[in-house]
């Protein structure tokens, strides 16, 4: 039916003796929200870093829209249409919201080696930044310095930084991390509105959010995908229950 946008084929990453990603194989379909769950230390963050290009892979391949991107540096992957967000908010705290977003837009439109043009009169950056601000609901704080915003709002901007790159594939590392239930709900709604334009790979610990949002889920254990499928399939997969969820259904409570 829908086409495969990202294909991970036998990917490996070793840290010394530790195999963090162990011949991992994964397919993500265009247009879906694909959640990546697994116990701590299963290698989710490592896999995400390999997909975004921050960590080189030892062997295996990553295909994006049919092209082999395994060896591409980060900035070329962003140009190809992949952007990521971080679990720990990674912004420019001294800059304003608009300046933060404009940086993302500038990366996409190029010209960063344009040494001599001044930026004061460039409306393309501004338009792109404003557009993104509107999508993530930060229009009321455009000129606020980011460091003064609440944690929840910084999480929104964290997402916005990736969206402003206009990627076709978004890699989100625990967008709900450290948010309270209300903020978490708002973030979930926001992710829902993004599915029209982006394919999303979502790493998340908040099981409620995962089961609510994800079209398909892959379970990662010890650097390998042990199961992929819809929320119902995953819930009932004995392999997954043993390795991760536990046998008590009530567990995905809390947040």
């Amino acid at each position, binding site marked *: 039916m829908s086409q495969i946008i990202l294909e991970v084929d036998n990917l490996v990453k070793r840290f010394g003796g530790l195999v963090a990603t162990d011949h991992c194989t994964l397919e993500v379909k265009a247009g879906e929200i694909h959640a990546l769950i697994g116990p*701590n230390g*299963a290698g989710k963050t490592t896999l995400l870093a390999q997909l975004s290009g921050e960590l080189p892979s030892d062997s295996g391949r990553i295909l994006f829209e049919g092209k082999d991107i395994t060896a591409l540096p980060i900035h070329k992957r962003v140009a190809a249409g992949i952007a990521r967000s971080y679990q720990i908010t990674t912004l420019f705290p001294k800059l304003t919201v608009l300046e933060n977003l404009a940086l993302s837009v500038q990366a996409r439109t190029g010209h960063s080696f344009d040494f001599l043009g001044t930026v004061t009169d460039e409306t393309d950056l501004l338009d792109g930044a404003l557009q993104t601000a509107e999508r993530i609901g930060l229009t009321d704080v455009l000129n606020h310095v980011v460091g003064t915003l609440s944690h929840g709002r910084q999480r929104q901007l964290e997402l916005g930084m990736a969206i402003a790159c206009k990627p076709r594939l978004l890699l989100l590392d625990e967008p709900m991390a450290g948010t*309270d*239930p*209300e903020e978490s709900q708002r973030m979930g709604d926001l992710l829902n509105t993004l599915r029209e334009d982006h394919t999303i790979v979502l790493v998340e610990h908040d*099981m409620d959010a995962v089961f609510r949002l994800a079209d398909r889920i892959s379970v990662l254990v010890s650097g390998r995908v042990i199961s992929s499928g819809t929320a119902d399939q995953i819930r009932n997969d004995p392999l997954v229950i043993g390795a991760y*969820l536990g046998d008590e259904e*009530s567990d995905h409570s*809390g947040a």
Partner: protein
Amino acid sequence: MSALLSLENVTTGYGPSQVLYGMSFEVRPGEAASLLGRNGMGKTTTLRAVFGQLPIWSGEIRFLGERINGMPTERIAQMGLALVPEGRQIFPNLSVEENLVAFSANRSASAEPWTLERIYSMFPRLKERASNMGNQLSGGEQQMLAIGRALLTNPHLLVLDEATEGISPLIRREIWNVLGRIKESGQSILVIDKYLKELIRVTDRHTFIEKGRNMWAGDTAMLTDSPELWERYMGV
């Protein structure tokens, strides 16, 4: 007997911005207390104030009956207050065993102190990895190590800040079970967490905080009887 730790009308904040607007609560000997509230309401700031990492603007903090406002962090710790911090903060360049023994002491002069053997028997995983460096552990193992490290100082009061944040459900349950056992051994505990359902299985008394103030306090029975409180202070 009087309270182990008590806060009375504590106000503090960071630079010019105030976070706590009069926090009061107490932990009694032998009990497991909890501090509940949404993000940004001042839970971690309260802990920082207790551990002497923030200057207190007004109010009073007492530990073992002694006023500890303005005391340096290490003296408060030496009196027998131990922390399992948010983010675990394992020393990456010490081995697992060194992380445990480097700070071991009997600060509460316990007749039946926590020893390396007891910690290892509670967390066999740590024994297997005794010679690994702290940064070679998984998140769950680091959490166990952080708990063991704090217990080995034999504190009067063990404080756990978001001890199950970012831990997979299975390990989370294991940690709650261990906390239950620690409490049964007579150790006083103060827990900060947002996983309410699991938390109330272990703890006896609860304080909700909102906007830097304590808003409600009561025991577990009172809390389970009033679900509207959950809605109001936790948004669940």
